[in-house]
Structure formats: C-alpha cells, structure tokens
C-alpha cells in the first residue's frame, strides 16, 4: 500500500509517471472505491430501486393483501376517478395552500425578529426552534390533548376570552384550521432558520445604499429585503409544499383520517390496508409520484432562475 504514495512523492511535478505503475494505483483506488460505496449501493438498490420498479409492476396487477396476484392492465388506475380519492386530492390541495401561506408569513416574521444578535435573541431562536425536535406523531398526540380535553390550556384560554369551548376538530374546516396552527408551531422555527441564513446572505451595502437614498424601513423591506430573499423564500415554500402534499400523521392522529379530512397519503393507506387492494394503492402512488416529480422539477427550475 506504500506504493500508492510514491508517484506523488517522487515526481510531484510530472503528471504522467510510468503508465503501468499509475494504472495499478488507479485500479487499486478504483477497487477500494467500489468496496467503500458497496454498502450504500446495496441499500439503495434493495430498498429504493427495486421497490420503485415493484410499485410500477403492482400498479398494473391485481394484487390483494392476501392471495395470488396477476397482471390486470390499467384497471387499478380507476382508483384515480374514485370520488373519495378526488375529495382527498381537493382537501390536500386546500391544506397545502393554507399551510404554506401561513407558515411562510409566520417564519418570515420570526426571522426578521431574531435575525440580529441582541441580548435574548439566541434564547428566542432556540425556543422557536425547539418544537422541530419533537416528532410529528408526538406533536399530533400532544395537540390531540390540547384540542380535546376540557381542561387543556387552549380551552381554558378560549373560555377565558369568552368564546365558550370550541370544537377544534369537529368539522373538516375546523380540523384544517386547527392542524395548520399545530403545523405552524411545529415547523415555524425550521423555516425561520432557513430564512435567517438567507437574510444574513444579503449584502449590507444594499441596505446602506437604500438608507442613503432616504428609504424608510418599510420601503427597505419591500425593495431590498424581499427581492433579495426570493430564492430562499422559494426554497422554504417548496419544502412546506412537498411536506404538506404528503401529510399523513397529523390528520390520521387528530381525526382518525375520517373522510372530510383524508389526505392523498391517507387514501393510499386506506386502499392498501383497509380495502386490502395493494394494486389500487400502487396506482394511486404512481400518480402521486408523477405529479410530485413534475412539481419538483418545475420548482427547481424556478429557484435556479431566481437565484441568478
């Protein structure tokens, strides 16, 4: 193995030492590269590439949870015109839109509030960020208690303010609002952090120039900060968008995934494990994946262009 070093030591200036020797070194490093990358390659192949192919195959097969499977063409894709599925799509889109808008606004406000190092901002940042460490399922169970127990702090507060006891999860609409509030609590610190790094990347000379030109705070926010922050803001929104489109834990736990709050992923779960029709579930998965990939590519392009 010592021979590996010799070309660099003996002839650092000469890029082409004896060809045979160099070849064997490169071969050694190549073999080592393959060996080191092998565990990852095997994991990726077995637990990602094969399932991906299997999903395509399952989507065109009759595939019950128990029993034999056989190919059945595109019949599973009927699931895409199922009224319950369409309802889930509509609910997911509504939820995604509301969450992304609310979350981005709150996170932007927090980022502006704590972007500069002053006394106490370090503490505030940590506190805003703390919920990001709590798992989404735990968060949902926590808020299930807040929304449902008469003695919860939230219900005491609402009662104190004179509204009586609210039905936080009773209808599709109220469940959506309550969940958006919960998700904002859980993810605002995360988005805030991303936006803060964007804010810190803005050239101070731009603010200086704006101030010299006599701009007030409001004008600086609109004319300097927001345009400069656009790529970062877009990134934060993309993350919120993709996360919300795949929502599962929050609605499954808060409302049991009942029909007026079922999301697309809940629909996939229902097709697969309640209706026990894995083929239909795979078909819905394939369609969802196709939409997400198109969306991802479009968003990446958008961010790239705005980043320039």
């Amino acid at each position: 193995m010592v021979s590996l070093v010799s070309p660099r030591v003996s002839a650092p200036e000469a890029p082409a030492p004896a060809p045979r020797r160099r070849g064997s070194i490169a071969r050694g490093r190549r073999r080592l590269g393959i060996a080191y990358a092998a565990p990852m390659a095997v994991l990726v192949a077995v637990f990602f590439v094969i399932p991906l192919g299997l999903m395509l195959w399952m989507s065109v097969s009759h595939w019950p949870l128990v029993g034999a499977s056989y190919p059945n063409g595109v019949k599973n894709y009927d699931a895409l015109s199922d009224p319950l599925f369409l309802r889930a799509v509509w609910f997911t889109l509504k939820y995604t839109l509301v969450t992304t808008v609310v979350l981005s606004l709150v996170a932007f406000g927090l980022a502006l509030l704590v972007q500069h190092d002053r006394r106490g901002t370090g503490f505030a940042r940590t506190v805003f960020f703390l919920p990001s460490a709590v798992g989404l399922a735990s968060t949902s169970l926590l808020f299930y208690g807040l929304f449902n127990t008469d003695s919860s702090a939230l219900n005491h507060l609402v009662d104190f303010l004179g509204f009586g006891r609210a039905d936080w999860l009773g209808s599709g609409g109220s469940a959506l609002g309550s969940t958006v509030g919960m998700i904002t609590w859980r993810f605002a610190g995360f988005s805030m952090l991303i936006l803060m790094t964007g804010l810190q990347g803005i050239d101070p000379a731009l603010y200086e120039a704006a101030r010299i030109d006599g701009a007030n705070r409001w004008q600086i926010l609109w004319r300097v900060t927001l345009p400069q922050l656009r790529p970062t803001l877009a990134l934060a929104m993309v993350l919120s968008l993709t996360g919300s489109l795949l929502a599962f834990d929050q609605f499954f736990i808060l409302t049991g995934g009942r029909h007026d709050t079922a999301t697309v992923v809940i629909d996939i779960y229902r097709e697969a494990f309640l209706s026990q029709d894995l083929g239909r579930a795979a078909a819905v998965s394939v369609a969802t994946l196709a939409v997400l990939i198109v969306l991802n590519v479009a968003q990446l392009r958008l961010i790239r262009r705005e980043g320039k």
Partner: protein
Amino acid sequence: MNRLRAAGLHVTSAALAVLFLLPLLWTLYSSLSGREAGGSGTDNYRRLADYGSGLGTYLVNTTVVALVAVTVTVLATTLGGYAMARLAFPGRTLLFLVTLAILMVPYTTILVPLYILLGWLGLQNSLLGLGLVMAVLQLPFGLFMMRNSFEALPVELEEAALIDGCSIGGALRRVLLRGVLPGVVTVALFSFLAAWNEFVAPLIFLTDGEKFTLPVALFNLQSGSLGSVDFGALQAGVVVSALPCVAVFLVLQRYYVRGFTSGALKG
C-alpha cells in the same frame, strides 16, 4: 426612539417565546397532575408503564430501530462519502444521482412495495427491517453531508498519513475520521431523530403488538381504547417520547443547525 424599538422587539420575542413553550409546558404539567382528586403526580406515568406490552418494551423497540438506523446510516455514508469525495470508481455519478433521487421520491409513495419486499426478505414485522428502511431514508442527507465533509479536509492530511505508512483505510480511520466528526455527529443526530419519531412505516410494517415502537403504541393508546381516552397516560407518553429528542437537541443544537443550513441551501 431606538431604545423604544429595541424594547418593543424584546417584548414581542418574549411573548412569542412563551407562546411556543406553552404546549410543551402544558403537556408536562398535565402529565404530572393526578386524574382524580388525591391522585399523586406519577399516576399517569404508572398507568402508561402498564399499558399494553409495557412501556419498557416499547422503549427498547424504539431504541433498537434507532440504533440500527444510526449505525447503518453512519457506516454506509461515511464509507460512501469518502469514496465519492476521494476515490474514482465506475458508476460513482450514477450512484450519487440515484441516492439523491430518494429525496425526490417521498417514501410514503413506495411504502406499499416496501411492505411486500420486506415480506420476501423475511423482514416483515421486524425491527431490523424497519431500522434498515429508516437508514435508507437518511442516505441522501448523510451522503451529501459526508461527501462535503471529506471534501472540506485538505488532501495533504491524507497524503501525510499515507507517507507515514498508513493504508487508505488506516488513514480514514486514524486521521480523517477526526476531521469529519462534526459531520458524523450531524448525520447520526438526524438519523436518530427521524427513526425515533417515525410513525407511518412502523404502523404499516409492524403487526405484532410486542414489536410496536413508542409512536405506534401511543397511537393505539389514543385510538384503540374502548370508552374514553386516557388523556393523562397519553400526555405522559408524549413527554416520554419527546424528552430524549428535546434533550439531544439542546445538547447538540449547533449540529442540528449545521445540518439544516448546509443541507437546505445547496438546493
């Protein structure tokens, strides 16, 4: 004027901080208050401990899954990241792109085929199988982190070790690992939190109540009980499952921030 503004910002930050802490503090408080008058502060935790197969079993299960995930993620991405950064091998770009594609394909969409596949491998209803799946989900982030960490180390460090007679493996183990340790900690931290908190995958893959992880057991406590929900035990459960994450987060905060900023902004 400026002082007034600063004071205003302080008050706003403080008020918002209280608002963010409130849900956590409320859960902690109500988990410690007895359900009936005269109940002691640990009643909820006692009922939680006796629930189902026992809290201990669920804690052990969750820990096993998290340990498998962390170990596999760290080993695979440290070796893989080094290979990506420093060793040329055929298929390197392909492997990198396919691994990153895991980010593009949300795993919830491949859960159904994974369920079948785990059955074929004899890993259905197994903590090991679940741990492996959780590890794979962390590979894109881990690989990205470790490749960048190795690239950030000066090549001279490695060359010096090789001149001193180390093999590449020896140099990696004895010299380079110290340099990429922050990256390793970051990857381990993210892998741990993701595996510890995962809900959908164990819900689908684990069928035997004895094997449930904490989030699934708590979900059953919430939804499975006949009659009224035992909110006291549930809140105690939330505390037990959130506490390790909050503790780990507070201790390793800067690694957490490092992961978000380095991972997120390269997009």
